[in-house]
């Protein structure tokens, strides 16, 4: 079908985008033809969201060309993207819940319904009802958005995107960004049916982490990896396993993940979970984490692994079951309690939860353990200096001085400061929540070195990671989760690492 295809409505030609320290999009070329649904898949950090943000006007590309209807263009902001016929349907959070459905549909475009500055609600709601009819959803345009279930909200967003038709924006292109993540199966089918029905009116780009859904809805699929498009497939010819392998791609490089440095872990148990459950998140989680062991948790979004990580870090206490740290049974009601139990958390939001960006390096390093620095209630400044300098040297943090604000450090060095904070606090367990997110390759390797080094010294590590290969490469043991339960356990000794395909089978 490709050969005889008509002119694309949207073309990306060698689009490039860089952020400080990260090459987010590398020569990305994508075509979208009239009436087509194009699926876009890739792991976290593959560049999907950057691409969507460029198409919705949040970012601008640095190089390459974007063509709409054959004409080169770029999108200055969201309103500009809208006016060029790009509509967006994001996850559940893009309706203003305190406004009515009709108002949401015409938010920012109410002027057509006013006369002498006074709003004519009847014409607005009538128009909104017509939009809702296009997507065949039975919702009162006067209802408040917060009263709608997530599926209906999604339909309202679709209806909102379709108002662009009336604004004469040319051929409509609708971006569907993870629209199914909060929907039930039946709701997803309705959404898909509507999208298919609307193909005569618009073309779609569909981003999802659920491969089966991408296969089901899309006509063509682009696979992204490390900021580049690595494959293009017709949906009819692709299968889940192949796509997954294309996404994670790289053959395992033992050297990269410092496998030769992986030592056998010790016999002492650092953390033990028994039938740990949290309503709506995960259930019956049991595992033992030994000193010196890296326990990787694999799973897709919604598998419950993120929530489990937050529980271990003290942000979301478990509901039932037992959790013991160092042999002592605990319920971690706050991060403070987790810290007291000897757990250190290295969050994915490094700049928000990891570091106080506006404090100096030294103050960040000592933040989690000022107690032992205090003499008669006062902080021993000289001792603090000494400690900070020694950590900076030991972890090779590249910083002008220990008095530099963490704000001014690169991502990799920031991550080292977070690690130094927990080592200084003598944490016995580290929870690594996507520890290499946003880091470039060199910085990643340094983090791997450090993680190996601290486990050799006896620290226990729980790891959730953006990529499956990182999880496998680093871990001694891998737990696979799906729908809140552990579906598979694999030991990952050096030279005998499980294959990605085997684990993927337990994830999806």
């Amino acid at each position, binding site marked *: 079908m490709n050969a005889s295809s008509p002119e694309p409505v949207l073309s990306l030609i060698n689009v490039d985008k860089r952020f400080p320290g990260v090459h987010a999009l590398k020569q990305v070329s994508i075509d979208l033809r009239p009436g087509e649904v194009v699926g876009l898949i890739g792991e976290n950090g593959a560049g999907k969201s950057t691409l969507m943000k460029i198409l919705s006007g949040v970012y601008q590309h640095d190089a390459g060309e974007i063509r709409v209807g054959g004409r080169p263009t770029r999108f200055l902001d969201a309103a500009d993207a809208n006016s060029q016929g790009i509509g967006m349907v994001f996850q559940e959070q893009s309706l203003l819940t305190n406004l009515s459905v009709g108002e949401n549909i015409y938010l920012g475009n109410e002027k057509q319904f006013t006369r002498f500055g006074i709003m004519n609600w009847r014409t607005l709601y009538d128009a909104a009802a017509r939009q809702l009819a296009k997507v065949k959803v039975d919702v009162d345009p006067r209802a408040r958005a917060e009263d709608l279930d997530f599926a209906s909200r999604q339909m309202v967003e679709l209806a909102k995107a379709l108002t662009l038709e009336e604004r004469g924006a040319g051929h409509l292109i609708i971006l569907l960004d993870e629209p199914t993540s909060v929907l039930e199966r039946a709701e997803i089918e309705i959404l898909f049916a509507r999208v298919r029905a609307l193909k005569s009116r618009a073309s779609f780009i569909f981003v999802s982490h659920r491969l089966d859904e991408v296969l089901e809805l899309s006509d063509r699929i682009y696979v992204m990896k490390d900021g580049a498009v690595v494959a293009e497939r017709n949906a009819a010819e692709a299968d889940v396993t192949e796509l997954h392998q294309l996404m994670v791609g790289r053959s395992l490089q033992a050297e990269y993940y410092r496998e030769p440095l992986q030592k056998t872990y010790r016999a002492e148990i650092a953390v033990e979970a028994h039938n740990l459950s949290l309503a709506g998140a995960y259930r019956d989680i049991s595992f033992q984490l030994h000193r010196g062991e890296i326990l990787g948790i694999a799973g897709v979004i919604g598998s419950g692994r993120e929530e489990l990580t937050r529980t271990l*870090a003290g*942000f979301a206490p478990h509901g039932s079951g037992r959790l013991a740290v160092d042999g002592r049974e605990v319920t971690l009601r*706050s*991060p*403070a309690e*987790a*810290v*007291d139990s000897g757990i250190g*958390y290295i*969050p994915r*939001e490094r700049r*928000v*939860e*990891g*570091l*106080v*960006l*506006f*404090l100096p390096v030294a*103050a960040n390093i000592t*933040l*989690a353990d*000022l*107690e032992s620095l*205090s003499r008669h*209630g*006062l*902080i021993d*400044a000289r001792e603090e200096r000494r400690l900070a300098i020694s950590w900076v040297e030991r972890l090779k943090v590249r910083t002008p001085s220990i008095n530099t604000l963490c704000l*001014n450090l690169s991502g990799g060095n920031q991550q080292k400061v977070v690690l130094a*904070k927990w080592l200084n*606090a003598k944490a016995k367990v580290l929870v690594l929540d996507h520890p290499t997110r946003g880091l470039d390759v060199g910085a990643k390797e340094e983090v791997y070195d450090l993680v190996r080094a601290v486990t050799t010294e006896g620290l226990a590590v729980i790891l959730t990671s953006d990529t499956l290969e990182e999880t496998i490469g680093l871990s001694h043991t891998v737990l696979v989760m799906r729908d809140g339960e552990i579906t598979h356990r694999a030991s990952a000794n050096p030279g005998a690492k499980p294959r990605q395909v085997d684990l993927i089978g337990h994830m999806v």
Partner: protein
Amino acid sequence: MSTFVDRLGIDRLRQWLPLTTLVILVILVGALQPVFLQPATLLQLASDTAVLFILATGVTFVIMLGGIDLSIQSMASLASVVVALTVARFGYGAFALAIGLGLLAGLLSGIAHVRLKIPSFIATLAMGGVLYSSALVISGERSIMLADAERSYQSWITGTVFGAPGVIIIGLVVLIVAHVLQAHTRFGRYSAAIGAGEPAAYASGVKVGRQKIFAFVLSGGFAALAGVVLAGRLASGSPTLAAELLLPSIAAVVVGGTAITGGVGSIWRTLVGALIISVVRIGMTFLGVNIFAQNIVFGVVLIVAVAITIDRSKIPIVK
């Protein structure tokens, strides 16, 4: 990395701007009125600044955390009334009572803010109303002059120690205590961390709520002390005694370079800020500006100082 350099430059400017301003103002006022630079006038300036400085010091702890305390002037007034009413019976105990009330009011504000999650400006606005009302009720809505016998208890405020006015000594003690608390204790460090990045402080195991409540307790306590000192200096207590001091206090903190977004600041800066406010006030008096109209200047100074010190990168949405 030009932004890096820019940032350093701006930071340095921000850091030294208040002190430079103070020096220039002193020279300016001194040039207009040479009498201003005589030791006696300067000593008077220091004495007059003490109450403002004590009030501003208390609220500095709250602002460092990124909050605000709008009840300090009401607390100070209430403290003056309590002293005036009870000093005859309790003697020095009256001072302890007043300051104890301040600590208690701060505790209540802190709990309302932290446990009930009420924004600090509204919680303390409400607490200010409660305190003002209490002062009105117990004073019978009038101002209470201290009798001569009662004034003898005020000598630690009104008298001199080795030639220095007591009020300056009190101010110095407050400066030292507050500076140590802010710069050399865990509480001070945690405050800075919370103000600069609350989620990271929380994730690092800092007991955020407890630190915040303590800051409000300090603010209430220092406000009460300021009221006690003011009552001593004016030899009276009244429910509106300190009513005009809220704006200058907050202005002092901000003018000194403590950012209202939290995290950056120090007691020294507040001292500089309080002195700037005092010098401006004296300068305006020399120039014959109506004492009420001086609020115009303080209002402008407050807004300008906030606009200069605020770190916009920290607040994507300003409300």
